[in-house]
């Protein structure tokens, strides 16, 4: 019986193999003491060699030609699959363009967060260019990035879980529900903005990822509001949400004005014409949608 156990231990996975072989070693030590006896004594002389052989074979199973062949084949399959995934993924999600949006550093993040909460003192909102490509966010505080929206989204989901927990309404599925609900609203907002940009035929260099970044900046205000509400009660929630809504409104208008409106209108002169009026309305409605979303996504967290 111990013999068959050591044989089966030789064929299995390393962890169970080692476990089996250690069990055999302990049984072998017991059989060491039993060696003086009877019938099993003849087998027990081979028994101490058995588990030792199993142990050594467990250490060096890579020298077995079949398994080494299987390992090289498996690794070549894995690298092939990785190449295929890389090639196809680059077609759908432009990885190199995404890298630009994550090229941030601490100073930029700090300045941008301050700008999102207090945009009233900032004078120059233009994105600086370097030979026709926008400068990376590390060097220009006006450039959009995806780091703050991504972190803000994750923090929002966690803070929502915290807020629900203080009301004894928490369960782990609710985290997923909050996350997918916020994500769906984000996607719908970006799609609506894209649709309205198409309908009004605005010639702009705003990409989809830029719009995603701008829509993601409101998570910062939401987190501030919810945390204030958790710490200090409903009045603090409403006050801080009001402040952050006004700040995001001004921020969006000042940022989008440069991108959507024509040159003359962006500088403050009133330019008549149906097109510019439509563009102004579009800018206003995009900026006004942000506070609405901020309230909609957080009011059920503070009761």
């Amino acid at each position, binding site marked *: 019986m111990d013999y068959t156990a050591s044989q089966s231990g030789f064929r299995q996975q390393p962890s169970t193999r080692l476990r089996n072989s250690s069990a055999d070693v302990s049984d072998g030590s017991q059989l060491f003491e039993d060696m003086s006896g009877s019938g099993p004594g003849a087998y027990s002389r081979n028994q101490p060699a058995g588990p030792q052989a199993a142990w050594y074979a467990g250490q060096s199973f890579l020298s077995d030609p079949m398994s080494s062949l299987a390992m090289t084949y498996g690794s070549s399959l894995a690298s092939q699959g990785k190449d295929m995934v890389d090639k196809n993924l680059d077609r759908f999600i432009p990885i190199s363009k995404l890298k630009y949006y994550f090229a941030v550093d601490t100073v930029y993040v700090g300045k941008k967060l301050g700008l999102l909460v207090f945009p009233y003192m900032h004078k120059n909102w233009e994105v600086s260019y370097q030979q026709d490509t926008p400068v990376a966010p590390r060097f220009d505080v006006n450039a959009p990035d995806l780091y703050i929206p991504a972190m803000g989204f994750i923090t929002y989901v966690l803070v929502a879980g915290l807020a629900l927990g203080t009301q004894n309404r928490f369960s782990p599925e609710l985290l997923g*529900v909050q996350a*997918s*609900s916020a*994500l*769906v*609203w984000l*996607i*719908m907002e970006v799609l609506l903005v894209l649709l309205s940009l*198409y*309908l*009004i*035929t605005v010639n702009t260099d705003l990409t989809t990822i830029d719009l995603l970044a701008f829509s993601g900046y409101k998570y910062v205000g939401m987190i501030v509001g919810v945390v204030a509400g958790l710490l200090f009660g409903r009045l603090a929630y409403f006050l801080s949400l009001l402040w952050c809504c006004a700040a995001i409104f001004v921020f969006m208008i000042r940022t989008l004005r440069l991108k959507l409106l024509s040159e003359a209108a962006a500088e403050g002169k009133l330019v008549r014409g*149906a*097109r510019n009026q*439509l563009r102004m309305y579009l800018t206003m409605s995009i900026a006004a949608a942000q506070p609405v979303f901020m309230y*909609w996504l957080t009011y059920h967290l503070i009761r």
Partner: protein
Amino acid sequence: MAFTLYTLIQTAILCTNAVAVLHEERFLSKIGWGVEQGVGGFGDDPGVKAQILNLIRSVRTVMRVKVNSQVRMIVTFLLQGVFTGWHIF
């Protein structure tokens, strides 16, 4: 309002289906949105209405390439209940 990604996909399918089903001569011409009336503006500023008409026409063209795409979409939508237990209805 607990939206899920699944409801988003459903909404997208239903909206695309609705745009694909708009009949040209029975409906759009009656309210003055026919194809022959929308292509006029080649100038600098097509206008919102022309853009909407272009959008509807292009969605319909893309959908018509596949045969009976409407039937396909409705079948997809209804068959999801088989796998997920009819929780939508």
